[in-house]
């Protein structure tokens, strides 16, 4: 027994630990260390387009030179993660009216401070990149563990905003999301950051989104063009090809400038102040008819039950995919296995996350991702949610009907799903 104490494990513990270190290093290098910070190419979309081309030439629809050409155009117009640039030479739209290069530089680059001005830099990589990825592709290292997945900015679609229907958000909308986070998801609140740092991040998110959308459109342009032809051939310059690329960039920028803020009809219904003003009272006698009207709209004209279900548990339409995911699945196929075939065969190897169907919100939980103010709920119903099946009801419902629905939806968490009609009559009044 005493001999055991002379075991080298006891006398030279340090040396054994040293042996482990190289092993850790090797494993880290092989699996986890991504090395230099570069924008990832949208290989998933290239694969998607290759499948869409079909026929014999589908596998080599795009040549290596074409892909490099697209990457070079992107680098020439938008720069790198360390040094963002803005596309110049556009005739129709001045990009500097949308994006501020000074703010972009604060959000870009490695985490640290500017050596001269001592301004904080690298905000995006410090706060966002681990989920949303350096490229803004929603494929950061932690993305795979999250449900819902982090947003992929490259589609240029954002859900929670106060602008019209499927238009882009404005900077206030993005700022609100940064400040308040998104309840029910992994997106936290960044209200502890100074306002100017959040402003810089908003700017950078728009930059990544514009860049990603332009990348997709350039790949579309390749797919529509001739086999093997470069978009912008440095050896064979032509006005037509340069105009085509500029049009793509300007179209994307246009969508960010053509934004219409929706003014919610400020004329609230007469009953609003009494029933829902400071403290909603779903049990009062006057609330009864409003809730009945709301329930009728929910099941009837507004069509909410199509997806959210008769019980509002969000269980009626569970096989849809949102706009970010639907490209990865073959929705026409009858079985789940065959729906996922394109993903398993191809997109998986390019880093795409496993597709999940989009779940309609369970309205009994009282968790509203886009904000729980009546105004937020009004917008979700009136304008729909961009990128999802939630539609625009502006032409179907009157403002009064939408407010009625808002009140009804607000009451749902306090009503028993199993006996909705009687639950209200039980007078669940507040104790005092």
């Amino acid at each position, binding site marked *: 027994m005493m001999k055991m104490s002379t075991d080298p494990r006891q006398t030279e513990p340090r040396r054994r630990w040293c042996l482990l270190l190289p092993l850790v290093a090797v494993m880290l290098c092989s699996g986890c260390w991504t090395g230099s910070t570069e924008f990832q190419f949208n290989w998933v979309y290239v694969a998607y387009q290759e499948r869409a081309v079909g026929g014999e030439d589908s596998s080599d629809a795009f040549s290596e030179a074409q892909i*490099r050409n697209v990457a070079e155009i992107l680098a020439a117009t938008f720069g790198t993660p360390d040094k963002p640039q803005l596309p110049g030479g556009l005739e129709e739209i001045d990009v500097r009216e949308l994006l501020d290069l000074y703010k972009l530089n604060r959000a870009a680059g490695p985490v640290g401070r500017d050596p001269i001005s001592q301004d904080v830099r690298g905000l995006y990589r410090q706060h966002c990149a681990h989920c949303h990825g350096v490229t803004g592709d929603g494929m950061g290292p932690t993305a795979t563990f999250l449900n819902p997945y982090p947003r992929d900015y490259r589609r240029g679609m954002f859900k929670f905003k106060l602008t019209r229907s499927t238009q882009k958000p404005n900077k206030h909308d993005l700022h609100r999301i940064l400040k308040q986070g998104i309840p029910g998801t992994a997106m936290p609140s960044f209200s502890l950051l100074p306002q100017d740092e959040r402003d810089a991040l908003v700017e950078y998110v728009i930059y990544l989104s514009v860049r990603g959308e332009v990348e997709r459109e350039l790949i579309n342009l390749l797919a529509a063009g001739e086999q093997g032809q470069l978009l912008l051939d440095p050896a064979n310059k032509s006005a037509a090809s340069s105009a085509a690329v500029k049009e793509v960039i300007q179209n994307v920028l246009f969508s960010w400038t053509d934004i219409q803020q929706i003014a919610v009809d400020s004329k609230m219904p007469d009953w609003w102040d009494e029933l829902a003003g400071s403290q909603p009272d779903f049990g009062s006698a006057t609330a009864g008819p409003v809730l009945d009207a709301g329930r009728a709209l929910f099941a009837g004209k507004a069509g909410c039950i199509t997806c959210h279900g008769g019980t509002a548990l969000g269980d009626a339409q569970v096989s849809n995919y949102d706009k970010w995911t639907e490209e990865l699945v073959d929705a026409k196929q009858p079985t789940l296995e065959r729906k996922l075939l394109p993903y398993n065969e191809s997109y998986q190897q390019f880093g795409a996350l496993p597709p999940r169907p989009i779940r309609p919100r369970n309205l009994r939980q009282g968790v509203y991702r886009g904000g729980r103010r009546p105004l937020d709920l009004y917008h979700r119903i009136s304008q729909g949610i961009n990128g999802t099946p939630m539609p625009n009801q502006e032409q179907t419902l009157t403002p009064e009907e939408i407010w009625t629905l808002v009140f009804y939806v607000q009451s749902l968490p306090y009503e028993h799903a199993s006996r909705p009609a009687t639950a209200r009559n039980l007078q669940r009044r507040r104790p005092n």
Partner: protein
Amino acid sequence: MTGQTSRRVSRSAQALLLGSLAASLLLVTSGCTRAMPGAVDASTTGVTSLRQDFELGSAAVASVEQTVPEPTGEFAQLRGQFVLTGGAPGTLAPLSADKDLQVCAADGSPPNEALVVDSNGGMANVLIYADPQGYKIPIGDAKWEHEEYLQAPTMLTGLAGFDQKNCVFISHVFAMRSSQTLEIINSDTVGHNTDLQGATGRTARENYQVASNSTVIYQPKNKSARPFKVTCGAHSWMAAYFHVLDHPFFAVSKADGSFEVKHVPCGVPLSFRIWHESANKLAKLTVDGKEVSLSNGRLDLAEFQAGEERVLKIEIDVSNFSKLFN
């Protein structure tokens, strides 16, 4: 005793440390081996040269000005038929309705319209539209647009609108001008959720709730970059294709494969794009018995003469639809 205890403690602590290290390594490596797509190496010289061209416009680019040709002010008619050749295609898997069956599957399962061919080979739902090379068609110019187009109603309603019945989009392929306004109609007794979020270019993206037996109004405002898919959020099998053009020279083939583009301007080089949702890149067609090779569906046509009535028989081989029948 105390020495032994502490040794045992330290040894078990060591084992615990080693174990947790191994476990964390396993976690770390398993979590991170997810394939990453990777960046593409861009050559610095390429990037610099492209940036200079872009910002300043190099001499070579500036010298090639885009010129719009001048038509004579007279007009011709283009008619024709799309025919599928090369034997009978395989059978398409039927679509399966899984919801609102009393309305959507009242007459059996909804039709699969990925390729619609009549008994004579006539192909429906082929879109043909002018897409000239090297210039853009001016809009609202009397030399380009016949009076009929200039005075055409801008509101597409009723039969000219976009209807859905029995959970099928009546117009499976639909084309319109960006200056027009469209009535989206629901003739069903269930609500539909007409989704135009996939619109391309600057065309307005929308996703409408259309209550049963009612309509909504859609204004595309701008032309789209290419045809795009329209779906229904409530009924996942429903699909149609839209294209929004700024000029009026387009047509969608009818059930027998016939199409008509009225009042084509004369005396200018025109090419037409032929598009079908299920076709591969169209590289070869037979036009009036002669084989023509084209780039991705772009068909060049000889200049039209005043009053000419051109009739084209365009044959598309079934091999162009290989991806449908895998």
